[in-house]
C-alpha cells in the first residue's frame, strides 16, 4: 500500500476531525498537516509538499479558488481536492481553470472522499457522479470551448498544431517546411503565431508545452 501524505485545510474543527478520523484509518495514509485558512493552506502546502490537499472552498483569508491555484502552480505534484458545501457549476468551472482535478461536496459520503483521495494520489482526476452531472448539465448538448481541457490549445489551427509537434521534436524551420510542403517563411509565421497564442518565449517552453499536452513523448 502506497504512503499518501495529506494536508487537511478546513476552518471547521468538527469537519477536520471527521476527515482525519476517516483517512487515518487507511493504512499508509498520513495527515501531515492541517490548515484553518486559505493562506495557511498555501503556506503549508509549500512547506510540506503533500500528495493531496483537501481544501475547503470557503475558508477565510484567501478564497479557496485562489488558494488552489497557488498550490497547483507552486507544487504541481500536489493534487488539490476541493471540498465544498454545495454543488455549483460556476465553482467547478473556476476550479478546473485553477488546475484542480478533484471535487467532492461535504454532503457526499465518506466513501466518496476516500476514493477521491486514492484517485488523486494516483494523479488521476476525481469528480463525483453528481459533479459530473453538473458539468455536463451546463453543456446544453455541446461542450462550450471554455470547458475543453487546454482551451488555449484548442485555439491553435490544425496546421499550427502540426508545426508545434515538428518544432518540439527538434526540427528546424527548414525541416518543418520541407515536411509540410510549405515555405520557410510560412513556417516562421506559424511559429510566431503559435508562440504568441500560447504565450511562450523559447523553444524550451514549446517543448515543455508539447510534452505536457502529450503532443510528444518526453
Amino acid at each position, binding site marked *: 500500500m502506497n504512503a499518501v501524505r495529506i494536508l487537511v485545510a478546513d476552518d471547521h474543527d*468538527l469537519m477536520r476531525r471527521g476527515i482525519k478520523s476517516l483517512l487515518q484509518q487507511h493504512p499508509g495514509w498520513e495527515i501531515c498537516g492541517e490548515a484553518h485558512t486559505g493562506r495557511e493552506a498555501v503556506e503549508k502546502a509549500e512547506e510540506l509538499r503533500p500528495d493531496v490537499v483537501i481544501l475547503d472552498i470557503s475558508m477565510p483569508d484567501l478564497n479557496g479558488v485562489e488558494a488552489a491555484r497557488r498550490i497547483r502552480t507552486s507544487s504541481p505534484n500536489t493534487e488539490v481536492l476541493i471540498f465544498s458545501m454545495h454543488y455549483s457549476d460556476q465553482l467547478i468551472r473556476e476550479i478546473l481553470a485553477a488546475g484542480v482535478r478533484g471535487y467532492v461536496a461535504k454532503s457526499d459520503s465518506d466513501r466518496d472522499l476516500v476514493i477521491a483521495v486514492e484517485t488523486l494520489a494516483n494523479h488521476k482526476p476525481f469528480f463525483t457522479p453528481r459533479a459530473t452531472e453538473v458539468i455536463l448539465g451546463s453543456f446544453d448538448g455541446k461542450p462550450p470551448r471554455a470547458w475543453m481541457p487546454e482551451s488555449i490549445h484548442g485555439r491553435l489551427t490544425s496546421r499550427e498544431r502540426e508545426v508545434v509537434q515538428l518544432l518540439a521534436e527538434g526540427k528546424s524551420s527548414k525541416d518543418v517546411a520541407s515536411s509540410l510542403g510549405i515555405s520557410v517563411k510560412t513556417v516562421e509565421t506559424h511559429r510566431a503565431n503559435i508562440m504568441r497564442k500560447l504565450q511562450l518565449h523559447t523553444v524550451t517552453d514549446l517543448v515543455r508545452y508539447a510534452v505536457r499536452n502529450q503532443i510528444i513523448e518526453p
Partner: protein
Amino acid sequence: MVAGKSLRILIADDQPLVRRAIRLLLESHAGWKVCGEAADGREAITKTKELKPDVVIMDLSMPSMNGLDATREIHSSCPQTQVLILTLYHFPELARTAQRAGAQGCVLKSDSNRYLILAVASLGISQPFFGA
C-alpha cells in the same frame, strides 16, 4: 460531569464527516452510545420515533426539512427526548429561537470541543444548556 449515566444519542446532520466527528467525541464518554444517525429533518423525526433516544443532536440546516421544524415535531410527538441544536452559524436570538422550537440546548459547532460533552451531559439529566 455526570459519570456513569448511560445515554442513547441520535445524531442528525447532513454531512457524514461531521456525524463521524460528533460520534467520535460522544463515544469517548463512558456509557454514551450513538444509537442512530439521520441526514435530514424528516429522517431525524422518523428515527427518533423509532429509536426513542435520550438526546438528539440536531443540525439546524439540513435539506428536505430543517432542524428547527424537526425539533418542533419531535418536541410535540416525543416530549421525553431532549434536543440539542448544533449549528455552524451564530445569529442573534439563536438561543431563544431554539428554545421556542422546543430544544433544550444549543451549541455552536465551533465550540463543540469545549461544550458538546457538557451540553449532552446536561440534557441527559434534563438540565437545559444554552451556553453559546
